């Protein structure tokens, strides 16, 4: 098994996918760091102060003003209201949720990358894991070795899990190292609040507790890993089912993007919460952002994702071991 996993890792590494991914992440992180830096500067100029409390207060006031305009959509209103309550809570407890520093940037980057960017990166590796062997014809050589088909697929899946872990490590390290140049490398001990629950339009602060930022970031990375694995597993299944890597990527891309769009407009379509793509934003439950559909919780989303993932895995294995290869 070790040898088989090594083989798969060799192929992933030699296809240079991981380096391409690292380069993409580096460029994006640099871009976002600059954007964030600009935003902070602009805010400081506008408010004439670098005091975060004033800034946060101003954000609250801005949100309140927006809430009062009549043309605002119901979803957006709810989102603003909950965020507002949360910001108020932070303010009252004298905690700066966006204290500058590389760990804070890292946290925000993960929160923003979890539902689209990260699955996309995983997809780059997962999409051609099996389909490229089929389209390149090497599957014929692979399957005529004295190794069971299930074992071969399992070795590929383990390699995928390793690659996902590696990608997440790349994202974590690069976002920390690059943003630190601008924001500094401090802030691991910054206290943050979590445990917000959302009941309709209200923010329930009953379970709120403090976490040091390092723990908070680690928790979010753990959840991001979970999401990446589910996205990777689904891509993996498609990769087994289809010969064309492009088709695999196309379908996954469509699913992920439709998820991002659906999240903004499905509050009235309740059964949409069983779709995997609206459940990807697990970190929202940690930070206390309203879920797209009422009644969604961390446990619910994780279960939905697990069911999708396991199903995909089962299909992948059944099809791969039973299928005739032409």
């Amino acid at each position, binding site marked *: 098994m070790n040898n088989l996993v090594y083989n798969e890792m060799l192929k992933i590494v030699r296809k240079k996918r991981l380096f391409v991914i690292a380069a993409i992440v580096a460029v994006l992180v640099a871009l976002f760091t600059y954007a964030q830096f600009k935003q902070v500067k602009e805010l400081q100029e506008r408010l004439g102060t670098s005091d975060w409390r004033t800034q946060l207060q101003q954000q609250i006031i801005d949100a309140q003003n927006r809430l009062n305009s009549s043309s605002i959509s119901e979803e957006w209103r709810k989102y603003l209201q909950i965020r507002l309550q949360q910001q108020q809570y932070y303010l009252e407890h004298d905690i700066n949720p966006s204290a500058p520093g590389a760990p804070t940037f890292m946290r925000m980057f993960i929160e923003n990358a979890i539902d689209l960017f990260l699955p996309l990166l995983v997809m780059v590796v997962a999409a051609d894991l099996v389909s490229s062997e089929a389209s*390149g014809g090497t599957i*014929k*050589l692979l399957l*005529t*070795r*004295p190794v*069971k088909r299930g074992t071969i697929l399992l070795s590929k899946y383990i390699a995928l899990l390793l690659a996902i872990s590696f990608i997440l490590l790349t994202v974590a390290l690069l976002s920390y190292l690059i943003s630190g140049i601008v924001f500094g490398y401090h802030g691991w001990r910054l206290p943050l609040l979590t445990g917000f629950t959302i009941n309709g339009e209200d923010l329930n602060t009953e379970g709120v507790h403090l976490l040091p930022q390092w723990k908070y970031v680690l928790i979010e990375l753990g959840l991001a890993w979970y999401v990446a694995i589910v996205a990777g597993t689904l891509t993996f299944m498609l990769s087994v089912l289809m010969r064309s890597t492009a088709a695999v990527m196309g379908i996954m891309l469509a699913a992920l993007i439709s998820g991002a769009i659906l999240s903004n407009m499905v509050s009235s379509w309740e059964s949409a919460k069983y779709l995997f793509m609206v459940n990807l934003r697990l970190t929202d439950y940690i930070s206390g952002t309203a879920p797209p559909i009422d009644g969604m919780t961390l446990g619910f989303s994780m279960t939905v994702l697990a069911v999708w993932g396991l199903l995909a895995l089962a299909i992948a294995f059944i099809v791969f071991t039973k299928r*005739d290869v*032409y």
Partner: protein
Amino acid sequence: MTKQATLIVENLRKTIRRKEIIKGISFELKEGEVFGFLGPNGAGKTTTIRMLVGLIKPTSGRISICGYDLERQFTKAIRHIGCIVENPELYPYLSGWENLEHFARMVPDIPKARMNEVVELVGLQNRIHDRVSTYSLGMRQRLGIAQALLGKPKVLILDEPTNGLDPVGIREMREFIRFLAETEGLSVLVSSHLLSEIQLMCDRVAIMAKGTMLRVDTVEHLLKEQARVVWKAEPLEAAKAILAAETSIFRTDGDTLITPYEPKKLSVWNKKLVEAGVAVHEIQPKLPTLEDLFIELTGGETIE
């Protein structure tokens, strides 16, 4: 013959979407022989070969390799097979050596010495550390054979091994295959669309058409049956009448007649013709080819 059968195929059938593609074929490969596999497109050659190496599951029937059932004891059975199915497709972004290493890792206990051995055997020593994407088709073919031989198989299955090779390469390949069979004692199953190739290198030949096995026999046997004599005589009608009384006439081709080749009776027939006043211009025994046989058996279906 006391040579052992290494590959036994019994009543193999495959149905795809209710259409029977392979309609119950049986044959066996013996140790140290080169077995040719012929058939027009769509005859089921490739499907059969893929079933032999476990890529396609037969609907019914049995394949056993060195005594192991392919379906039930897959890893033990497949251990004794080396194969190239269609083109030798390897990982282009790895070097030849890395490709071999890759496949060596999938089989227990392949020492590095064996890898060097097969590289030398196929003559790739100079280019083995270059990326496969820079290889010519012939080199890929050789690398493909190298990986097939890596696990010291008893049965070697080669689908179109001379595809894309130049004439010298084809000859080398032919000699190499004979060498493997004669010296190393491998059973080699070769499919080819070049009938002359098969004729030159195979001991036995199987001819497939429309999912059934038409003939399995030694080349020698098959060819013997097919020997012909071409007669050029005048007047043709008279000659035809006389010969028809003696033997069967296959064809009348312009001003020639074609009859079976029976060396001992040839002079008798000739004498009868001469006595009847027919002028015999030419009696030519025609060397038989598999191609003739093939066309005859398959009813003139195209073979690529």
